[in-house]
């Protein structure tokens, strides 16, 4: 019955109710859309990261003096160190990597690109091929997808690397996305022996350890550290999962924060409901007096007004929930140029959040007016015109 009363009253003042509902709709659509955008962003980023978190990356200790500890050249990892790592982590795979950059000439075009020197056997573990073959012969090269595209490189093309000689392209790599280990998309991959000959480098720039059992990452990491950093810190050891976690947590926090800002629009909507409800109370003072005089209890008056807020909230949040699918779609297209992260549970859950917050805000805004209505003095209310 109180529900029925509330319903009639919402209908009677439909224009006013409509405006309040509109406020809630906008509020819900805003937070849901922003929430979905944030979530899609996180998903998109984790997708664009090549790493699934199964690697440990060993780099020369940043800022380390490298006083020949273990005989390594400052800023590089010596063969001996690599062997120590290999022994420490066995049976996990250890991949030493040379990396550098150089001017390159493709046909008549001059450009700059990254060069990675890898042992031919290690390449298939790290990289996928899209065309051609893996390295064959010392002066062959594989080219990153973006680099190939930007410079119009095909299997069979030739690349001159500075004054170091010329390479024949035997394969094009699959696009890999941003990685924490190597980023060959914008560069080329060559045989490590060719790299040694060409650049005369007597140490590796980094060592990648692939860990098959993800649960053992911590263990393997400390094995390496124990082996190499016994006397002084020679290398830095990081695992990609930790970086991944840090990045995703950071983005998650940003997206939560932005969603909270969207929540301000819900607060505005709440204020508009508060306003509508207070008007409703003021307008019906006499009626409340009558209701009280014929035996309506305070809590029943309260309930009546809360129902009114609830009706506005449910309608607003419901419509808002539906519209926010479109809102999420639009904002995904606009910001990410894709909707592939829209229809996934972690995005859609924001619709539920939005609806819950919408209804919650409405009820919260109805509390004070309901309290006010139920505490009116019945006689004064009756006398009110």
């Amino acid at each position, binding site marked *: *019955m109180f529900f029925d009363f509330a319903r009639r009253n919402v209908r009677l003042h439909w224009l006013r109710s409509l405006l309040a509902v509109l406020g809630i709709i906008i509020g819900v659509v805003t937070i849901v859309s922003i929430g979905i955008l944030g979530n899609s962003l996180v998903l998109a980023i984790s997708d664009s990261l090549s790493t699934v978190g199964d690697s440990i990356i060993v780099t020369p200790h940043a800022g380390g003096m490298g006083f020949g500890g273990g005989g390594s050249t400052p800023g590089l990892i010596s063969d001996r160190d690599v062997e120590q790592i290999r022994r420490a982590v066995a049976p996990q795979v250890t991949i030493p990597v040379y990396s550098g950059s150089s001017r390159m000439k493709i046909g008549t075009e001059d450009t700059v690109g990254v060069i990675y020197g890898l042992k031919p056997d290690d390449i298939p573990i790290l990289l996928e091929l899209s065309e051609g073959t893996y390295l064959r012969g010392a002066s062959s090269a594989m080219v990153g997808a973006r680099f190939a595209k930007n410079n119009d490189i095909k299997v069979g093309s030739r690349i001159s690397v500075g004054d170091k000689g010329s390479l024949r392209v035997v394969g094009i790599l699959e696009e890999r996305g941003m990685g924490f280990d190597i980023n060959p998309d914008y560069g080329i991959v060559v045989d490590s022996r060719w790299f040694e000959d060409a650049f005369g480098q007597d140490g590796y720039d980094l060592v990648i350890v692939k860990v098959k059992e993800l649960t053992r990452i911590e263990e393997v990491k400390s094995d390496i550290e124990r082996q190499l950093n016994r006397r002084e810190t020679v290398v830095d050891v990081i695992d990609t999962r930790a970086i991944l976690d840090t990045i995703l947590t950071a983005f998650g926090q940003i997206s939560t924060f932005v969603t909270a800002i969207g929540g301000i629009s819900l607060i505005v909507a709440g204020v508009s409901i508060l306003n509508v409800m207070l008007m409703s109370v003021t307008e019906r003072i006499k009626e409340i007096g009558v209701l*009280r*005089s*014929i*035996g*309506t*209890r*305070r809590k029943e008056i309260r309930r009546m007004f809360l129902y009114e807020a609830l009706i506005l909230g449910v309608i607003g949040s419901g419509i808002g929930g539906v519209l926010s699918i479109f809102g999420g779609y639009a904002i995904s297209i606009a910001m990410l140029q894709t909707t592939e992260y829209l229809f996934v549970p972690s995005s859609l859950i924001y619709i539920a959040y939005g609806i819950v917050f919408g209804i919650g805000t409405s009820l919260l805004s109805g509390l004070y007016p309901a309290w006010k209505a139920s505490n009116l003095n*019945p006689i004064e209310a*009756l006398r009110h015109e």
Partner: protein
Amino acid sequence: MEEEINEICSNGSIIRFREVTKVYPLAGGDVRALDGISLDIAPGEFIAIMGPSGSGKSTLLNLMGCLDTPTGGDLCIKGRNTRGMTDEELTVLRRDHIGFIFQQFNLLPLLNALENVQYPLTLKTGGRDCTGRCREVLAAMDLDESLFSHKPGELSGGQQQRVAIARALVNDPEILLADEPTGNLDSKTGTAIMALLDDLNRNQGKTIIMVTHDPAIARYARRIIRIVDGKISSSGGEAAALANVF
């Protein structure tokens, strides 16, 4: 203490005032609306309360209806002392035992005639369907069936007051309180309404307390209580009171 409070109430009166005062604290000084009222009303009485404007008639009626509480003294309704009752208890007492009839009718504008009558019953029974009883009560007020679905705005004053009386009666209260029930009606309609109240008093034994300015209306009552300045100046029988009026 509890015992003592209730002792005061157990004399068979349906309504009992013992040294009741009502003071409205105002910035410019307190207003003593009722000043030491003592009054016993027996079940089945039909009482008119008369007195000059501002003398405290409405205040007295509102106290009887538990819409307000005395500043001092004891007020008993149906043998129960209202002192110390919570708002909730007072409301339930009012809902189940007291019916209000107003000068302004005070029907709920959103509800039609039948729904207005249903409302208090639903409050009491918690929403069970009760159209049968409500139609009965409405019909007993000589309201035409065809008007049951009309909103208050579509009814005449007399018709509205009939609906209001039906609403007051639907929970079968022992006490009916009416503040100038004919004040907004022409004399012919007023007479018809009074005939209804008279019938309720005589044939259903309802205790009726009515505030009125109109001696012709007061004549329906069998006792007249006169109030001046918040004090009872006479609370005699019909003859004495009317002698005072004319």
